[in-house]
Every structure is written in structure tokens, then in C-alpha cells.
């Protein structure tokens, strides 16, 4: 049994004083399953969820879940939150401070009998590992415990839409992993439209079926996680997705036949072959390259499929726990991630001359 797709087409502006300070203008479909809402801080993610839940009234637009119209500015429809059957975990949690964890969770189960209510509550608190804190008030819970109670409070109801605003941000990897499993199971069992806001790549990887990327109040990309997050077309999105290398470059030449073009980095004079894009020679463009997509070699490699091989010099080597970050200067400075093993094997040291190897398709265009 699945629930119908949630469709929202919304405009909403905020003003500070007389100036319009932020405007949300989006049109999204959320089919059953988990859709990740991704975007830099201030992109409008929480505002969008508020509009869907009925807490913020859009300036114009329409929100519908299948046949049920939740909001329609033209038809003058605006269902109050309690009639939208949308469960919502607020970014600020908003636990009821005067109720115990258990009472917070059972709050949304008014229609059940006391015994059922209690059974549901205990079950979900247990699966979220906070059953031992059931009698605590929110003020007596740790940050992560509060977040789990808030999530339990939303999931225990039987909503038609689930809105989760960074529901796991305060949790450690272990608990997070378990709850992600729970969420997956929950989703598989119910197949509701779920909008899930997160900044965490880990959560996207674990959950995401689709990603909607938001920036400056607009949808800038939609699709599978890999498509959206690994080939981001927007500078801010690239930053948000954690691309370590963001470089300005000038287009030199288009090779339509090969589907590539040559660009020259703005600092230094290194040239790169990158995927063809809508640009003309002389245009300024920006490239995003993951530090993990760059290989290093101590000798100039030959007979390699990769077309971009840049000589450079190691400026620094910073060991991180699972990898080593090398900063390599080739006119511009690149961050490169290596495994500690590779680092040892190549006997890399600061000041050493190296070659950087980049596949054409590891270079992504971004718009500002």
C-alpha cells in the first residue's frame, strides 16, 4: 500500500523591514520513498517544510497530496496543520518541556486506547534506545536523546507525509546507523512521501533514493544522489556537497567531436581537459574536483587513459585519521586525498615533485 505523491508549488518571501530578504520559489514532486532535501545553510529547506506542514502560509501556490489539496491560494484552501496528516521533526525539535519523553511520544496517539498508546510508545522508544529515559522531561535529556525522542514522536503517528529536518544531526555514528536502519525499515513498510533534510553525506548515502537540491530558495537540481551531489552544477551546492577543490578557469578551445574542451586555470598556467559544456572560448568558468578523485605519482606516468597529468610540488602533508591530505602546488593549489598506505608506499615528503592525475570526468562545472 503506498500513499500518493506529494506535489508542492510554492512562493514565499520574507522581508526584513521593507527589503525582501529571502524568497522561496519552488515546484517539487515527492513520490513515496525518501527524498533528500539538500542545500547550503539558508537555502530555504526549513521554510519549505514549514509551508508543507501548514506552519507558514505561502504567498501563493498549491500543495496537494494526491487528491487531497492541502493548500491552494487561488481556491482559497489552507488546511490547518492538524488536518494535513504531516508528521514533522523540527530542526529545533520543539519537545513539550512539561511532558516526559513518553508523554511527548504518545501525544500524537490520542485516538488509540491507553494500552495501545503505551505499547506503541515503549516499542519505539526502545528501538531508538531511549526507553530508559522514558520518564525524563526534555530538560533532563542529552541533546541526542532529545533528538531521538522528537523523531519517535513523529514516526509513531500514522502520517501521510513525513517531514524530517536534520533529524539525526546530534547523533553519533553508532546510534545514527541503527536509526537509519529503522528509518529504512519504516519507509519500506509504509512507502510514504518522506522529505528528509540533511547535510550529511553519510545519511544521503544510507537513505537517499532521490535528492532535491535547493539554493537561494530555488530548486537547482533533482535526481539520484550521485547525479546531484557528485556532479553539482552550482558553486554553493558544490561547496555544500564538500568538493574540496573549486577553481576558476578560462575556456581555451571546444572539441565538440570528443565531447571535451580545454581550459586554463586562472592562477598558474596549468591546462586541463574537461567535459564539454555550454561555454565559448574566453568564458570564465568554475571547476569542482573532489580531492579523492585525484591520483598522485612520483614518476611521470605513461600509457594512461587519464588525459590530465599536471606536474606540481607537495606543499604539505597532513595526516588525517583515515587518509592523508596533500596540498600540491601547480600554479593553483590542489587538495589531494591519499590513503596512508599509498603515502608510505610512495615515500612522499614535503617539497617533493609529483604528478597529479585527473580523469576528464572528475572535473565538474559549477555555476555561481
Amino acid at each position, binding site marked *: 500500500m503506498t500513499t500518493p505523491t506529494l506535489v508542492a508549488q510554492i512562493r514565499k518571501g520574507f522581508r526584513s523591514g521593507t527589503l525582501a530578504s529571502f524568497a522561496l520559489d519552488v515546484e517539487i514532486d515527492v513520490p513515496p520513498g525518501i527524498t533528500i532535501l539538500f542545500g547550503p545553510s539558508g537555502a530555504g529547506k526549513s521554510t519549505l517544510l514549514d509551508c508543507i506542514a501548514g*506552519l507558514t502560509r505561502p504567498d501563493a501556490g498549491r500543495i496537494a497530496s494526491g487528491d487531497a489539496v492541502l493548500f491552494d491560494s487561488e481556491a482559497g484552501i489552507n488546511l490547518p496543520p492538524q488536518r494535513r496528516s504531516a*508528521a514533522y521533526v523540527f530542526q529545533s525539535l*520543539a519537545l513539550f*518541556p512539561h511532558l516526559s519523553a513518553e508523554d511527548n511520544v504518545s501525544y500524537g496517539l490520542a485516538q488509540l486506547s491507553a494500552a495501545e498508546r503505551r505499547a506503541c510508545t515503549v516499542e519505539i522508544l526502545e528501538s531508538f534506545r531511549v526507553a530508559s529515559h522514558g520518564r525524563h522531561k526534555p530538560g533532563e535529556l542529552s541533546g541526542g536523546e532529545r533528538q531521538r525522542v522528537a523523531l519517535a514522536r513523529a514516526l509513531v503517528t500514522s502520517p501521510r507525509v513525513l517531514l524530517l529536518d536534520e533529524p539525526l544531526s546530534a547523533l553519533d555514528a553508532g546510534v545514527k546507523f541503527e536509526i537509519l536502519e529503522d528509518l529504512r525499515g519504516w519507509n519500506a513498510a509504509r512507502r510514504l512521501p518522506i522529505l528528509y533534510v540533511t547535510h550529511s553525506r553519510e545519511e544521503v548515502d544510507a537513505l537517499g533514493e532521490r535528492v532535491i537540491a535547493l539554493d537561494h530558495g530555488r530548486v537547482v537540481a533533482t535526481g539520484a544522489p550521485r547525479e546531484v551531489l557528485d556532479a553539482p552544477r552550482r558553486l554553493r551546492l558544490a561547496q555544500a556537497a564538500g568538493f574540496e577543490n573549486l577553481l576558476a578557469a578560462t575556456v581555451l578551445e571546444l572539441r565538440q567531436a570528443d565531447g571535451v574542451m580545454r581550459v586554463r586555470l586562472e592562477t598558474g598556467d596549468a591546462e586541463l581537459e574537461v567535459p564539454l559544456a555550454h561555454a565559448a572560448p574566453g568564458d570564465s568558468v568554475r571547476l569542482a574536483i573532489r580531492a579523492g578523485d585525484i591520483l598522485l605519482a612520483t614518476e611521470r606516468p605513461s600509457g594512461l587513459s587519464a588525459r590530465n597529468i599536471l606536474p606540481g610540488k607537495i606543499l604539505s602533508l597532513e595526516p588525517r585519521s583515515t587518509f592523508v591530505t596533500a596540498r600540491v602546488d601547480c600554479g593553483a593549489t590542489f587538495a589531494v586525498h591519499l590513503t596512508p598506505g599509498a603515502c608510505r608506499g610512495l615515500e612522499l615528503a614535503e617539497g617533493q615533485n609529483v604528478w597529479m592525475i585527473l580523469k576528464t570526468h572528475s572535473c565538474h562545472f559549477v555555476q555561481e
Partner: protein
Amino acid sequence: MNLTALLLSLRLAALVSLILLLISLPLGSWLAFGKWRGRFLIEAVVSLPLVLPPTVLGFYLLIAMGSRSPLGRLWERLFGHGLVFTFEGLVIASLLYSLPFAVQPVVAAFRGVDPKLIQASAVLGASPLRTFFRIIAPLAFPGLVTAFVLSFAHTLGEFGVVLMVGGNLPGITRTVSIAIYDSAQSLDYASANSMAMVLLGFAFLALSIVYAMNRRVWTPWTPR
């Protein structure tokens, strides 16, 4: 000691402050959360009974509720006796007079409830009524206590309105504050003092209990 008068006063004060609480919950919640932008005018009107001298207010009420008024005549037709100079009349007059003391603290307390919690309740499917009773009212509890205490104490001590509308009839409308007033007027200080002491002692006890409980019951805050 005038036990009848004391009991009458307690009955009146308890009844009035309870009814006032019942009135100020919906009225206060409308004033705090309503949509009409002119609400502040009503808020001002609610406080007006305060600015008139009680006897004068009592005098107007006497006329408004008296045997010649439409209200008085309606009451007489319904219940077979007049409204003024009865306990019911006292209750109505005291309600009006103590209204501001109940409504004001309640409104202030309601305004202090974090709107995000109200939204959270609605999102969880709670009707406005359920939200009101399970979230808003408990979180506004100290304000409700203040409202109750102020209106209780004020009704206990009030005598201008009560004298005018009630007529100081022993056992029916002679409250302990009127009795104390009478004793003081007849320069019978011994009995005025002893009644005042009993009243103060009783009020002190009652208020102490309320305040001590208020501290206990009420701990909530937005989580750390």
C-alpha cells in the same frame, strides 16, 4: 467571631475566582492568539472596571441589575426573585469587578508560550482545544495561579461593590470584609481586629500553600 460571614466570603471568593478562571481561559486565549487586529481595544475594556471607585461601580451595577433594569426584570421572571441583594447578584458583580485581575495575567502567560510548541502540537494532529488544554494551559500555569490568587484575594477583600449590590444582609450578602468594615465603623476595634486577624491568617495559609505548590508543580522550560 462572625463565622457565617467568613464562610460566605470564602464561598464567594472561591466561586468567583473559579468562574473567572473559566472565563479568562477562552477570553485570554482569544486576546493572546486571536486574529482580529483590534483585540487590544477589548483588552483595554476588560481593565476598565478597575478605574472606577468600587462603590461607584457598585452603584452603576445596582442600577444595571436592579429591579427596574431589563436584566433585573428578566432575572425576576426567570427565577422568581430579584438579582440584586442576593448571593447570585454578588457573584455577578464581583465577577465583573475582579475580571481584570484574572484576564491580565492569563493573557500575559499565554503570550509567553513558545509558538513553536503550539505548532508542534497542531502538527501532531491535536485540535486547537487539545492544544490549549494539554500544551498552552499547562505551560501558562504560573500565570493561571497568579490570576486565581489575585482574583481570590481581591474578591475576599472587596467591599464597595459588594456593599452596594448586596446590601449587607446578614447570612446572604454580608461578607467578612463588610463585617469588618461595620465593626470598624462602629469603632468596635476589638472585634474588627480579631476578624481581620482571622481573615489574614486564613489568607496567609491559603496563599502559602498555593505558592509552595506552584513552585513544585511547575518546572517546565524549553529544553536546554
